[in-house]
Protein backbone atom coordinates (compact mmCIF):
# COMPACT_ATOMS: atom_id res chain seq x y z
CA UNK A 1 0.00 0.00 0.00
CA UNK A 2 1.58 3.28 -1.03
CA UNK A 3 1.92 5.83 1.72
CA UNK A 4 0.22 9.16 1.86
CA UNK A 5 2.44 12.21 2.28
CA UNK A 6 1.93 15.69 3.63
CA UNK A 7 4.61 18.21 2.70
CA UNK A 8 5.44 21.29 4.78
CA UNK A 9 7.41 24.08 3.12
CA UNK A 10 9.08 26.97 4.95
CA UNK A 11 12.52 28.45 4.54
CA UNK A 12 12.86 29.13 8.25
CA UNK A 13 13.88 25.88 9.82
CA UNK A 14 12.47 26.61 13.27
CA UNK A 15 9.10 27.46 11.75
CA UNK A 16 9.23 24.39 9.52
CA UNK A 17 9.92 22.01 12.39
CA UNK A 18 7.13 23.63 14.40
CA UNK A 19 4.64 23.07 11.59
CA UNK A 20 5.59 19.43 11.20
CA UNK A 21 5.62 18.99 14.97
CA UNK A 22 2.02 20.22 15.04
CA UNK A 23 1.10 17.57 12.48
CA UNK A 24 2.69 14.72 14.44
CA UNK A 25 -0.69 13.31 15.53
CA UNK A 26 -1.09 12.17 11.91
CA UNK A 27 2.28 10.49 11.84
CA UNK A 28 1.07 6.92 12.36
CA UNK A 29 -0.72 6.83 9.06
CA UNK A 30 0.78 9.65 7.08
CA UNK A 31 4.36 10.58 6.22
CA UNK A 32 5.17 14.17 6.97
CA UNK A 33 7.90 15.63 4.80
CA UNK A 34 9.76 18.90 5.27
CA UNK A 35 11.17 21.18 2.59
CA UNK A 36 13.05 24.45 2.92
CA UNK A 37 12.41 25.86 -0.52
CA UNK A 38 10.03 25.66 -3.43
CA UNK A 39 12.62 23.99 -5.63
CA UNK A 40 13.30 21.33 -3.05
CA UNK A 41 9.55 20.71 -2.86
CA UNK A 42 9.25 20.28 -6.59
CA UNK A 43 12.12 17.79 -6.58
CA UNK A 44 10.59 15.91 -3.69
CA UNK A 45 7.16 15.60 -5.24
CA UNK A 46 8.78 14.26 -8.40
CA UNK A 47 10.52 11.60 -6.33
CA UNK A 48 7.44 10.72 -4.32
CA UNK A 49 5.28 10.61 -7.40
CA UNK A 50 7.70 8.30 -9.19
CA UNK A 51 7.56 5.97 -6.19
CA UNK A 52 3.80 5.97 -6.54
CA UNK A 53 3.25 7.75 -3.25
CA UNK A 54 0.33 10.03 -2.68
CA UNK A 55 0.78 13.71 -2.00
CA UNK A 56 -2.30 14.70 -0.09
CA UNK A 57 -1.56 18.16 1.26
CA UNK A 58 1.11 20.79 0.71
CA UNK A 59 1.41 23.49 3.34
CA UNK A 60 3.60 26.32 2.15
CA UNK A 61 4.93 29.58 3.47
CA UNK A 62 4.73 32.44 0.99
CA UNK A 63 7.83 34.60 1.38
CA UNK A 64 10.84 32.47 0.55
CA UNK A 65 14.07 32.95 -1.36
CA UNK A 66 13.76 31.85 -4.95
CA UNK A 67 10.26 30.81 -5.86
CA UNK A 68 7.53 32.13 -3.59
CA UNK A 69 4.93 29.92 -1.99
CA UNK A 70 2.19 31.18 -4.28
CA UNK A 71 4.32 30.41 -7.33
CA UNK A 72 5.04 26.95 -5.99
CA UNK A 73 1.38 26.19 -5.35
CA UNK A 74 0.44 27.63 -8.72
CA UNK A 75 2.87 25.30 -10.43
CA UNK A 76 1.50 22.31 -8.55
CA UNK A 77 -2.04 23.39 -9.31
CA UNK A 78 -1.30 23.35 -13.02
CA UNK A 79 0.22 19.87 -12.87
CA UNK A 80 -2.43 17.30 -13.79
CA UNK A 81 -0.71 14.61 -11.74
CA UNK A 82 -1.66 16.48 -8.59
CA UNK A 83 -5.26 17.44 -9.30
CA UNK A 84 -6.45 16.11 -5.97
CA UNK A 85 -3.54 17.48 -3.95
CA UNK A 86 -4.74 20.06 -1.46
CA UNK A 87 -2.90 23.34 -1.11
CA UNK A 88 -2.53 25.47 1.99
CA UNK A 89 -0.87 28.86 2.20
CA UNK A 90 0.47 29.50 5.69
CA UNK A 91 1.83 33.00 5.86
CA UNK A 92 1.97 36.24 7.72
CA UNK A 93 3.34 38.31 4.90
CA UNK A 94 1.25 37.99 1.77
CA UNK A 95 0.06 41.19 0.15
CA UNK A 96 -3.43 41.69 -1.16
CA UNK A 97 -2.25 40.91 -4.68
CA UNK A 98 -0.46 37.74 -3.60
CA UNK A 99 -3.60 36.55 -1.91
CA UNK A 100 -5.70 37.19 -4.99
CA UNK A 101 -3.21 35.28 -7.14
CA UNK A 102 -3.13 32.48 -4.61
CA UNK A 103 -6.88 32.05 -4.73
CA UNK A 104 -7.50 32.64 -8.42
CA UNK A 105 -4.50 30.99 -9.98
CA UNK A 106 -2.95 28.67 -7.44
CA UNK A 107 -6.38 27.38 -6.40
CA UNK A 108 -5.43 27.18 -2.76
CA UNK A 109 -7.79 25.29 -0.49
CA UNK A 110 -6.94 27.09 2.73
CA UNK A 111 -5.31 30.35 3.70
CA UNK A 112 -3.92 30.27 7.22
CA UNK A 113 -2.29 33.17 8.93
CA UNK A 114 0.86 33.13 10.99
CA UNK A 115 1.04 32.82 13.89
CA UNK A 116 -1.24 29.80 13.73
CA UNK A 117 -2.86 27.62 16.36
CA UNK A 118 -1.69 24.04 16.39
CA UNK A 119 -5.22 22.72 16.69
CA UNK A 120 -6.58 24.89 13.90
CA UNK A 121 -3.78 23.82 11.58
CA UNK A 122 -4.28 20.18 12.43
CA UNK A 123 -8.04 20.35 11.90
CA UNK A 124 -7.68 22.06 8.55
CA UNK A 125 -5.12 19.53 7.40
CA UNK A 126 -7.36 16.68 8.55
CA UNK A 127 -10.27 18.08 6.55
CA UNK A 128 -8.14 18.36 3.44
CA UNK A 129 -6.57 14.96 3.99
CA UNK A 130 -10.03 13.42 4.27
CA UNK A 131 -11.17 15.12 1.09
CA UNK A 132 -8.02 13.92 -0.68
CA UNK A 133 -8.51 10.34 0.43
CA UNK A 134 -12.16 10.31 -0.55
CA UNK A 135 -11.62 12.04 -3.89
CA UNK A 136 -8.74 9.73 -4.75
CA UNK A 137 -10.84 6.69 -3.93
CA UNK A 138 -8.43 5.38 -1.32
CA UNK A 139 -9.64 2.99 1.32
CA UNK A 140 -10.71 5.43 4.02
CA UNK A 141 -11.28 2.80 6.69
CA UNK A 142 -7.54 2.40 7.16
CA UNK A 143 -7.13 6.06 8.07
CA UNK A 144 -10.20 6.39 10.25
CA UNK A 145 -8.45 7.91 13.29
CA UNK A 146 -6.88 10.77 11.37
CA UNK A 147 -9.88 11.73 9.29
CA UNK A 148 -12.19 14.65 9.81
CA UNK A 149 -15.64 13.32 10.67
CA UNK A 150 -17.93 15.87 9.00
CA UNK A 151 -15.92 15.81 5.76
CA UNK A 152 -15.91 12.02 5.74
CA UNK A 153 -19.66 11.80 6.41
CA UNK A 154 -20.39 14.32 3.70
CA UNK A 155 -18.48 12.29 1.17
CA UNK A 156 -20.04 9.02 2.28
CA UNK A 157 -23.56 10.39 2.09
CA UNK A 158 -23.21 10.81 -1.61
CA UNK A 159 -22.19 7.18 -2.17
CA UNK A 160 -24.74 4.47 -2.63
Amino acid at each position, binding site marked *: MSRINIICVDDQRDVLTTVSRDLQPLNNHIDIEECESADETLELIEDLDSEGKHIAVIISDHVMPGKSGVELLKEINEDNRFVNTKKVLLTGLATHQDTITAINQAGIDRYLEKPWHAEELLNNVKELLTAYIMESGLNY*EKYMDVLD*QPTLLNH*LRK*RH
Partner: protein
Amino acid sequence: MTKSNIKKIIAVIIPLIIFLLPPSFFPIENLSIVEKRVIGIFFLAAFFWVLEPIPIYATSVLIIVLELLLISDKSFVLFMQGSDAANFGTLMSYREIMATFASPIIMLFLGGFFLALSATKYRLDQNLARVLLKPFGEKPKMVMMGLMVITAGFSMFMSNTATTAMMLSILAPVLAVFNPGDKGKTAFALCVPVAANIGGIATPIGTPPNAIALKYLADTGTISFGQWMSFGFPFVLVLLLFSWVLLSALFPIETPKIKLAIKGKFLKTQKAYIVYATFAVTIFLWLFDFLHGMNAYIVALIPVAVFSATGIINKEDLKNLSWDVLWLVSGGIALGNALDKSGLAKNVVANIPFEAFPALALIVFTATLGLLMANFMSNTATANLLLPIIAALGTTMTSLEDFGGGKMLILCLTFSVSLGMALPISTPPNALAHATGQIQTNQMSKVGVIVGITGVLLTFVMLYVLKMVQFI
Protein backbone atom coordinates in the same frame (compact mmCIF):
# COMPACT_ATOMS: atom_id res chain seq x y z
CA MET B 1 8.39 -8.12 6.40
CA THR B 2 5.28 -6.08 6.97
CA LYS B 3 2.07 -7.45 8.34
CA SER B 4 0.22 -7.06 5.08
CA ASN B 5 2.89 -9.01 3.22
CA ILE B 6 2.60 -11.91 5.67
CA LYS B 7 -1.16 -11.87 5.14
CA LYS B 8 -0.75 -11.95 1.39
CA ILE B 9 1.62 -14.88 1.53
CA ILE B 10 -0.58 -16.95 3.82
CA ALA B 11 -3.65 -16.20 1.75
CA VAL B 12 -1.91 -17.31 -1.45
CA ILE B 13 0.17 -20.26 -0.24
CA ILE B 14 -2.48 -22.30 1.55
CA PRO B 15 -4.97 -22.36 -1.34
CA LEU B 16 -2.04 -23.13 -3.68
CA ILE B 17 -1.13 -26.16 -1.62
CA ILE B 18 -4.74 -27.30 -1.82
CA PHE B 19 -4.69 -26.93 -5.60
CA LEU B 20 -1.59 -29.07 -5.83
CA LEU B 21 -2.68 -31.87 -3.50
CA PRO B 22 -4.07 -35.00 -5.21
CA PRO B 23 -7.82 -35.60 -4.84
CA SER B 24 -7.16 -38.73 -2.82
CA PHE B 25 -5.75 -36.61 -0.03
CA PHE B 26 -9.16 -35.20 0.84
CA PRO B 27 -11.40 -37.25 3.11
CA ILE B 28 -14.21 -37.15 0.61
CA GLU B 29 -15.06 -40.14 -1.50
CA ASN B 30 -14.97 -39.85 -5.28
CA LEU B 31 -13.70 -36.31 -5.25
CA SER B 32 -13.46 -35.12 -8.84
CA ILE B 33 -10.74 -32.84 -10.23
CA VAL B 34 -13.24 -30.01 -10.67
CA GLU B 35 -14.47 -30.41 -7.11
CA LYS B 36 -10.91 -30.27 -5.84
CA ARG B 37 -10.36 -27.05 -7.75
CA VAL B 38 -13.54 -25.62 -6.25
CA ILE B 39 -12.21 -26.48 -2.78
CA GLY B 40 -9.07 -24.54 -3.67
CA ILE B 41 -11.09 -21.55 -4.84
CA PHE B 42 -13.24 -21.73 -1.73
CA PHE B 43 -10.24 -21.69 0.59
CA LEU B 44 -8.67 -18.88 -1.37
CA ALA B 45 -11.90 -16.91 -1.02
CA ALA B 46 -12.07 -17.71 2.67
CA PHE B 47 -8.51 -16.64 3.40
CA PHE B 48 -8.75 -13.55 1.24
CA TRP B 49 -12.05 -12.45 2.76
CA VAL B 50 -10.90 -13.09 6.30
CA LEU B 51 -7.38 -11.68 6.09
CA GLU B 52 -8.16 -9.02 3.47
CA PRO B 53 -4.79 -8.84 1.75
CA ILE B 54 -6.69 -7.19 -1.10
CA PRO B 55 -10.04 -5.37 -0.96
CA ILE B 56 -12.96 -7.77 -0.54
CA TYR B 57 -14.61 -6.82 -3.82
CA ALA B 58 -11.33 -7.62 -5.60
CA THR B 59 -11.42 -11.09 -4.05
CA SER B 60 -14.85 -11.53 -5.61
CA VAL B 61 -13.58 -10.64 -9.05
CA LEU B 62 -10.64 -12.98 -8.48
CA ILE B 63 -13.07 -15.81 -7.67
CA ILE B 64 -15.04 -15.25 -10.85
CA VAL B 65 -11.92 -15.13 -13.01
CA LEU B 66 -10.43 -18.19 -11.33
CA GLU B 67 -13.65 -20.07 -11.95
CA LEU B 68 -13.54 -19.05 -15.59
CA LEU B 69 -9.94 -20.22 -15.85
CA LEU B 70 -10.20 -23.42 -13.86
CA ILE B 71 -13.69 -24.83 -14.03
CA SER B 72 -15.41 -23.27 -17.05
CA ASP B 73 -16.08 -25.10 -20.30
CA LYS B 74 -14.08 -22.61 -22.33
CA SER B 75 -10.98 -22.28 -20.22
CA PHE B 76 -7.27 -22.83 -20.70
CA VAL B 77 -6.47 -26.02 -22.64
CA LEU B 78 -4.14 -27.46 -20.05
CA PHE B 79 -6.75 -27.15 -17.34
CA MET B 80 -9.25 -29.03 -19.45
CA GLN B 81 -7.00 -31.99 -20.21
CA GLY B 82 -8.55 -35.26 -19.25
CA SER B 83 -12.01 -33.76 -19.16
CA ASP B 84 -13.34 -36.93 -20.60
CA ALA B 85 -11.98 -39.00 -17.70
CA ALA B 86 -14.52 -40.57 -15.43
CA ASN B 87 -13.50 -38.68 -12.35
CA PHE B 88 -12.91 -35.25 -13.86
CA GLY B 89 -16.26 -33.82 -12.87
CA THR B 90 -18.60 -31.44 -14.70
CA LEU B 91 -17.32 -28.11 -15.98
CA MET B 92 -19.52 -25.05 -15.62
CA SER B 93 -20.77 -23.01 -18.53
CA TYR B 94 -18.68 -19.83 -18.82
CA ARG B 95 -21.88 -17.93 -19.58
CA GLU B 96 -23.31 -18.96 -16.28
CA ILE B 97 -20.24 -17.75 -14.38
CA MET B 98 -20.17 -14.43 -16.18
CA ALA B 99 -23.90 -13.99 -15.69
CA THR B 100 -23.34 -13.61 -11.98
CA PHE B 101 -22.31 -10.02 -12.70
CA ALA B 102 -25.87 -9.40 -13.82
CA SER B 103 -27.82 -11.86 -11.77
CA PRO B 104 -31.30 -10.83 -10.61
CA ILE B 105 -29.89 -10.24 -7.13
CA ILE B 106 -27.49 -7.64 -8.57
CA MET B 107 -30.37 -6.01 -10.44
CA LEU B 108 -32.38 -5.83 -7.23
CA PHE B 109 -29.49 -4.02 -5.55
CA LEU B 110 -28.94 -1.75 -8.51
CA GLY B 111 -32.57 -0.66 -8.22
CA GLY B 112 -32.05 -0.02 -4.52
CA PHE B 113 -28.95 2.05 -5.25
CA PHE B 114 -30.78 4.15 -7.80
CA LEU B 115 -33.56 4.87 -5.34
CA ALA B 116 -31.09 5.80 -2.62
CA LEU B 117 -28.97 7.93 -4.94
CA SER B 118 -31.96 9.90 -6.19
CA ALA B 119 -33.25 10.33 -2.64
CA THR B 120 -29.95 11.84 -1.57
CA LYS B 121 -29.61 13.94 -4.69
CA TYR B 122 -33.08 15.42 -4.35
CA ARG B 123 -32.68 15.67 -0.57
CA LEU B 124 -35.64 13.43 0.02
CA ASP B 125 -33.71 11.62 2.78
CA GLN B 126 -32.83 14.74 4.74
CA ASN B 127 -36.25 16.30 4.31
CA LEU B 128 -37.99 13.12 5.39
CA ALA B 129 -35.72 12.95 8.43
CA ARG B 130 -36.62 16.53 9.30
CA VAL B 131 -40.37 15.96 9.05
CA LEU B 132 -40.35 12.57 10.73
CA LEU B 133 -38.21 13.71 13.65
CA LYS B 134 -40.59 16.51 14.58
CA PRO B 135 -43.26 14.39 16.30
CA PHE B 136 -40.62 12.99 18.66
CA GLY B 137 -40.33 16.37 20.40
CA GLU B 138 -37.31 17.52 22.34
CA LYS B 139 -37.08 15.05 25.19
CA PRO B 140 -33.72 13.31 24.74
CA LYS B 141 -35.05 9.78 25.08
CA MET B 142 -37.79 10.43 22.58
CA VAL B 143 -35.39 12.15 20.20
CA MET B 144 -33.16 9.10 20.42
CA MET B 145 -36.08 6.87 19.61
CA GLY B 146 -36.91 9.07 16.67
CA LEU B 147 -33.37 8.90 15.41
CA MET B 148 -33.33 5.13 15.70
CA VAL B 149 -36.67 4.66 13.97
CA ILE B 150 -35.68 6.94 11.11
CA THR B 151 -32.20 5.46 10.77
CA ALA B 152 -33.60 1.95 10.71
CA GLY B 153 -36.31 2.98 8.29
CA PHE B 154 -33.86 4.57 5.88
CA SER B 155 -31.39 1.73 6.06
CA MET B 156 -34.13 -0.61 4.88
CA PHE B 157 -33.88 1.04 1.47
CA MET B 158 -30.54 2.86 1.51
CA SER B 159 -27.11 1.48 2.25
CA ASN B 160 -26.42 1.24 5.94
CA THR B 161 -23.24 3.29 5.47
CA ALA B 162 -24.88 6.18 3.67
CA THR B 163 -27.72 6.26 6.20
CA THR B 164 -25.27 6.33 9.10
CA ALA B 165 -23.24 9.06 7.43
CA MET B 166 -26.34 11.19 7.02
CA MET B 167 -27.69 10.66 10.53
CA LEU B 168 -24.31 11.24 12.16
CA SER B 169 -23.88 14.51 10.34
CA ILE B 170 -27.32 15.57 11.54
CA LEU B 171 -26.31 14.51 15.03
CA ALA B 172 -22.84 16.09 15.09
CA PRO B 173 -23.90 19.62 16.12
CA VAL B 174 -26.05 18.15 18.89
CA LEU B 175 -23.23 15.99 20.24
CA ALA B 176 -21.07 19.09 20.44
CA VAL B 177 -23.38 20.84 22.93
CA PHE B 178 -23.67 17.97 25.39
CA ASN B 179 -22.01 18.41 28.79
CA PRO B 180 -18.59 16.77 28.74
CA GLY B 181 -19.47 14.19 31.38
CA ASP B 182 -22.84 13.26 29.99
CA LYS B 183 -23.04 9.58 29.07
CA GLY B 184 -25.97 10.43 26.86
CA LYS B 185 -23.49 11.43 24.21
CA THR B 186 -22.42 7.81 23.90
CA ALA B 187 -26.03 6.69 23.75
CA PHE B 188 -26.74 9.03 20.88
CA ALA B 189 -23.58 8.23 18.96
CA LEU B 190 -24.25 4.50 19.36
CA CYS B 191 -27.94 4.51 18.56
CA VAL B 192 -27.32 5.41 14.93
CA PRO B 193 -25.07 2.49 13.88
CA VAL B 194 -27.10 0.05 15.96
CA ALA B 195 -30.31 1.16 14.26
CA ALA B 196 -28.66 1.15 10.83
CA ASN B 197 -27.33 -2.37 11.31
CA ILE B 198 -30.66 -3.66 12.57
CA GLY B 199 -32.74 -1.75 10.03
CA GLY B 200 -31.00 -3.43 7.13
CA ILE B 201 -32.56 -6.73 8.15
CA ALA B 202 -36.11 -5.66 7.33
CA THR B 203 -36.03 -5.80 3.51
CA PRO B 204 -34.30 -7.94 0.89
CA ILE B 205 -32.43 -4.84 -0.32
CA GLY B 206 -31.62 -3.55 3.18
CA THR B 207 -28.24 -5.22 3.24
CA PRO B 208 -26.36 -7.51 0.79
CA PRO B 209 -26.58 -10.72 2.92
CA ASN B 210 -30.37 -10.56 2.58
CA ALA B 211 -30.15 -10.48 -1.18
CA ILE B 212 -27.71 -13.36 -1.23
CA ALA B 213 -30.05 -15.31 1.05
CA LEU B 214 -32.82 -14.57 -1.40
CA LYS B 215 -30.82 -16.38 -4.07
CA TYR B 216 -30.57 -19.55 -1.98
CA LEU B 217 -34.16 -19.23 -0.83
CA ALA B 218 -35.19 -19.15 -4.46
CA ASP B 219 -33.77 -22.64 -4.74
CA THR B 220 -35.97 -23.85 -1.90
CA GLY B 221 -39.11 -21.91 -2.73
CA THR B 222 -39.25 -18.15 -3.25
CA ILE B 223 -39.88 -15.51 -0.68
CA SER B 224 -41.27 -12.28 -2.11
CA PHE B 225 -40.27 -8.80 -1.06
CA GLY B 226 -43.50 -8.35 0.83
CA GLN B 227 -43.22 -11.72 2.55
CA TRP B 228 -39.70 -10.92 3.71
CA MET B 229 -40.91 -7.67 5.19
CA SER B 230 -43.85 -9.35 6.86
CA PHE B 231 -41.49 -11.07 9.27
CA GLY B 232 -38.37 -8.86 8.90
CA PHE B 233 -40.15 -5.66 9.78
CA PRO B 234 -41.71 -6.80 13.09
CA PHE B 235 -38.38 -8.38 14.00
CA VAL B 236 -36.60 -5.06 13.43
CA LEU B 237 -39.23 -3.17 15.44
CA VAL B 238 -38.88 -5.43 18.45
CA LEU B 239 -35.10 -5.47 18.38
CA LEU B 240 -35.00 -1.72 17.87
CA LEU B 241 -37.23 -1.19 20.90
CA PHE B 242 -34.99 -3.48 22.92
CA SER B 243 -31.86 -1.59 21.81
CA TRP B 244 -33.48 1.70 22.70
CA VAL B 245 -34.28 0.48 26.22
CA LEU B 246 -30.78 -0.95 26.54
CA LEU B 247 -29.02 2.24 25.42
CA SER B 248 -31.16 4.42 27.67
CA ALA B 249 -30.40 2.17 30.61
CA LEU B 250 -26.67 1.83 30.00
CA PHE B 251 -26.04 5.46 29.18
CA PRO B 252 -28.49 7.70 31.03
CA ILE B 253 -28.89 11.08 29.38
CA GLU B 254 -28.54 14.10 31.68
CA THR B 255 -29.21 16.85 29.19
CA PRO B 256 -32.83 17.89 29.70
CA LYS B 257 -33.59 19.04 26.17
CA ILE B 258 -32.32 18.32 22.71
CA LYS B 259 -33.07 20.17 19.55
CA LEU B 260 -32.07 18.75 16.21
CA ALA B 261 -31.89 21.42 13.58
CA ILE B 262 -32.20 20.04 10.08
CA LYS B 263 -32.25 22.62 7.37
CA GLY B 264 -34.08 22.44 4.10
CA LYS B 265 -37.42 22.27 2.35
CA PHE B 266 -38.93 19.65 0.14
CA LEU B 267 -37.91 20.36 -3.43
CA LYS B 268 -40.78 21.25 -5.64
CA THR B 269 -39.30 20.83 -9.08
CA GLN B 270 -40.67 18.52 -11.69
CA LYS B 271 -37.76 16.13 -11.28
CA ALA B 272 -38.20 16.05 -7.54
CA TYR B 273 -41.82 15.04 -8.00
CA ILE B 274 -40.73 12.26 -10.33
CA VAL B 275 -38.37 11.04 -7.61
CA TYR B 276 -41.10 11.10 -4.96
CA ALA B 277 -43.55 9.30 -7.22
CA THR B 278 -41.10 6.67 -8.42
CA PHE B 279 -40.05 6.02 -4.86
CA ALA B 280 -43.62 5.49 -3.74
CA VAL B 281 -44.57 3.39 -6.74
CA THR B 282 -41.52 1.15 -6.50
CA ILE B 283 -42.04 0.41 -2.84
CA PHE B 284 -45.73 -0.17 -3.46
CA LEU B 285 -44.97 -2.63 -6.25
CA TRP B 286 -42.42 -4.41 -4.08
CA LEU B 287 -44.85 -4.83 -1.23
CA PHE B 288 -47.86 -5.87 -3.26
CA ASP B 289 -46.36 -8.26 -5.75
CA PHE B 290 -49.23 -10.67 -5.19
CA LEU B 291 -51.51 -8.11 -6.83
CA HIS B 292 -49.56 -7.58 -10.02
CA GLY B 293 -47.32 -10.64 -10.33
CA MET B 294 -44.06 -8.83 -11.08
CA ASN B 295 -41.28 -10.06 -8.87
CA ALA B 296 -38.95 -7.80 -6.88
CA TYR B 297 -36.12 -8.06 -9.42
CA ILE B 298 -38.21 -6.75 -12.25
CA VAL B 299 -39.71 -3.99 -10.14
CA ALA B 300 -36.19 -2.96 -9.13
CA LEU B 301 -35.33 -2.05 -12.71
CA ILE B 302 -38.23 0.39 -13.00
CA PRO B 303 -36.50 3.18 -11.05
CA VAL B 304 -33.28 2.46 -12.96
CA ALA B 305 -35.06 3.15 -16.23
CA VAL B 306 -37.09 6.12 -14.98
CA PHE B 307 -34.15 7.93 -13.38
CA SER B 308 -31.82 7.30 -16.31
CA ALA B 309 -34.38 8.45 -18.85
CA THR B 310 -35.26 11.63 -16.97
CA GLY B 311 -31.64 12.53 -16.27
CA ILE B 312 -32.29 12.40 -12.55
CA ILE B 313 -29.33 10.07 -12.32
CA ASN B 314 -26.71 11.24 -14.79
CA LYS B 315 -23.34 9.98 -15.93
CA GLU B 316 -21.51 11.58 -13.02
CA ASP B 317 -23.93 10.10 -10.50
CA LEU B 318 -23.33 6.63 -11.87
CA LYS B 319 -19.78 6.94 -10.58
CA ASN B 320 -21.14 7.29 -7.06
CA LEU B 321 -22.79 3.89 -7.18
CA SER B 322 -21.11 1.28 -5.00
CA TRP B 323 -20.08 -0.97 -7.84
CA ASP B 324 -17.74 -2.65 -5.37
CA VAL B 325 -20.73 -3.93 -3.36
CA LEU B 326 -22.32 -5.32 -6.52
CA TRP B 327 -19.09 -7.13 -7.43
CA LEU B 328 -18.71 -8.40 -3.91
CA VAL B 329 -22.14 -9.97 -4.13
CA SER B 330 -21.48 -11.32 -7.64
CA GLY B 331 -18.39 -13.14 -6.39
CA GLY B 332 -20.40 -14.70 -3.61
CA ILE B 333 -23.03 -15.88 -6.03
CA ALA B 334 -20.36 -17.29 -8.34
CA LEU B 335 -18.75 -19.12 -5.45
CA GLY B 336 -22.11 -20.54 -4.40
CA ASN B 337 -22.85 -21.63 -7.96
CA ALA B 338 -19.52 -23.41 -8.21
CA LEU B 339 -20.05 -25.24 -4.94
CA ASP B 340 -23.52 -26.21 -6.01
CA LYS B 341 -23.03 -27.08 -9.69
CA SER B 342 -19.83 -29.04 -9.17
CA GLY B 343 -21.73 -31.11 -6.67
CA LEU B 344 -19.11 -30.38 -4.06
CA ALA B 345 -21.51 -28.91 -1.53
CA LYS B 346 -23.73 -31.96 -1.52
CA ASN B 347 -20.73 -34.24 -1.63
CA VAL B 348 -19.19 -32.62 1.44
CA VAL B 349 -22.43 -32.60 3.34
CA ALA B 350 -22.98 -36.22 2.47
CA ASN B 351 -19.48 -37.13 3.64
CA ILE B 352 -19.70 -35.42 6.98
CA PRO B 353 -22.03 -37.18 9.35
CA PHE B 354 -24.22 -34.18 10.06
CA GLU B 355 -27.16 -36.51 10.53
CA ALA B 356 -25.67 -37.54 13.81
CA PHE B 357 -25.83 -33.98 15.09
CA PRO B 358 -28.97 -32.93 16.90
CA ALA B 359 -30.76 -30.48 14.63
CA LEU B 360 -31.17 -27.91 17.39
CA ALA B 361 -27.45 -27.89 18.12
CA LEU B 362 -26.78 -27.33 14.43
CA ILE B 363 -29.12 -24.35 14.32
CA VAL B 364 -27.47 -22.78 17.35
CA PHE B 365 -24.04 -23.51 15.89
CA THR B 366 -24.97 -21.91 12.55
CA ALA B 367 -26.24 -18.74 14.21
CA THR B 368 -23.21 -18.52 16.50
CA LEU B 369 -20.75 -19.03 13.67
CA GLY B 370 -22.47 -16.41 11.52
CA LEU B 371 -22.59 -13.91 14.37
CA LEU B 372 -18.95 -14.48 15.30
CA MET B 373 -17.55 -14.29 11.80
CA ALA B 374 -19.58 -11.21 10.93
CA ASN B 375 -18.11 -9.43 13.92
CA PHE B 376 -14.60 -9.74 12.56
CA MET B 377 -15.16 -9.50 8.83
CA SER B 378 -17.53 -8.07 6.28
CA ASN B 379 -21.11 -9.23 6.73
CA THR B 380 -21.47 -9.78 3.02
CA ALA B 381 -18.30 -11.83 2.77
CA THR B 382 -19.48 -13.95 5.70
CA ALA B 383 -22.75 -14.58 3.93
CA ASN B 384 -20.91 -15.33 0.69
CA LEU B 385 -18.84 -18.00 2.41
CA LEU B 386 -21.35 -19.61 4.73
CA LEU B 387 -24.62 -19.46 2.82
CA PRO B 388 -23.78 -21.96 0.05
CA ILE B 389 -22.73 -24.61 2.57
CA ILE B 390 -25.62 -23.96 4.89
CA ALA B 391 -28.05 -24.05 1.98
CA ALA B 392 -26.70 -27.42 0.88
CA LEU B 393 -26.83 -28.67 4.43
CA GLY B 394 -30.40 -27.49 4.86
CA THR B 395 -31.69 -29.29 1.82
CA THR B 396 -30.03 -32.60 2.68
CA MET B 397 -30.57 -32.85 6.42
CA THR B 398 -33.88 -34.47 6.96
CA SER B 399 -33.81 -33.95 10.73
CA LEU B 400 -34.12 -30.23 10.10
CA GLU B 401 -37.53 -30.65 8.55
CA ASP B 402 -39.18 -30.51 11.97
CA PHE B 403 -37.76 -27.06 12.52
CA GLY B 404 -38.46 -25.59 9.11
CA GLY B 405 -35.80 -27.13 6.93
CA GLY B 406 -33.42 -25.32 4.64
CA LYS B 407 -35.42 -22.10 4.55
CA MET B 408 -35.24 -21.82 8.29
CA LEU B 409 -31.49 -22.41 8.41
CA ILE B 410 -30.79 -19.83 5.69
CA LEU B 411 -32.88 -17.18 7.43
CA CYS B 412 -31.28 -18.03 10.75
CA LEU B 413 -27.82 -17.52 9.31
CA THR B 414 -28.72 -14.39 7.34
CA PHE B 415 -30.21 -12.67 10.37
CA SER B 416 -27.25 -13.66 12.57
CA VAL B 417 -24.77 -12.29 10.05
CA SER B 418 -26.47 -8.88 10.14
CA LEU B 419 -26.31 -8.87 13.93
CA GLY B 420 -22.51 -8.85 14.06
CA MET B 421 -21.86 -5.34 15.39
CA ALA B 422 -19.70 -5.65 18.48
CA LEU B 423 -16.54 -4.03 17.10
CA PRO B 424 -15.70 -0.85 15.24
CA ILE B 425 -14.47 -3.04 12.38
CA SER B 426 -17.63 -5.14 12.32
CA THR B 427 -19.56 -2.89 9.97
CA PRO B 428 -18.95 0.45 8.24
CA PRO B 429 -21.65 2.16 10.38
CA ASN B 430 -19.79 1.01 13.49
CA ALA B 431 -16.52 2.38 12.17
CA LEU B 432 -18.10 5.74 11.37
CA ALA B 433 -19.73 6.06 14.77
CA HIS B 434 -16.58 5.00 16.56
CA ALA B 435 -14.66 7.68 14.68
CA THR B 436 -16.85 10.38 16.25
CA GLY B 437 -14.72 9.85 19.34
CA GLN B 438 -17.78 9.61 21.59
CA ILE B 439 -17.73 5.86 21.94
CA GLN B 440 -15.12 3.68 23.56
CA THR B 441 -14.59 0.28 22.01
CA ASN B 442 -15.69 -1.53 25.16
CA GLN B 443 -18.92 0.46 25.24
CA MET B 444 -19.61 -0.47 21.66
CA SER B 445 -18.75 -4.10 22.37
CA LYS B 446 -21.03 -4.26 25.37
CA VAL B 447 -23.99 -2.98 23.40
CA GLY B 448 -23.04 -4.97 20.31
CA VAL B 449 -22.76 -8.26 22.18
CA ILE B 450 -26.02 -7.81 24.08
CA VAL B 451 -27.95 -6.71 20.99
CA GLY B 452 -26.32 -9.46 18.91
CA ILE B 453 -27.19 -12.28 21.29
CA THR B 454 -30.66 -10.92 21.93
CA GLY B 455 -31.12 -10.63 18.20
CA VAL B 456 -30.14 -14.23 17.64
CA LEU B 457 -32.53 -15.38 20.37
CA LEU B 458 -35.23 -13.24 18.85
CA THR B 459 -34.47 -14.86 15.49
CA PHE B 460 -35.14 -18.25 17.05
CA VAL B 461 -38.43 -16.98 18.42
CA MET B 462 -39.35 -15.53 15.06
CA LEU B 463 -38.49 -18.75 13.25
CA TYR B 464 -40.56 -20.68 15.77
CA VAL B 465 -43.51 -18.41 15.14
CA LEU B 466 -43.04 -18.72 11.38
CA LYS B 467 -43.04 -22.48 11.74
CA MET B 468 -46.19 -22.26 13.85
CA VAL B 469 -48.00 -20.34 11.12
CA GLN B 470 -46.59 -22.85 8.63
CA PHE B 471 -44.74 -20.22 6.68
CA ILE B 472 -41.62 -22.35 6.53
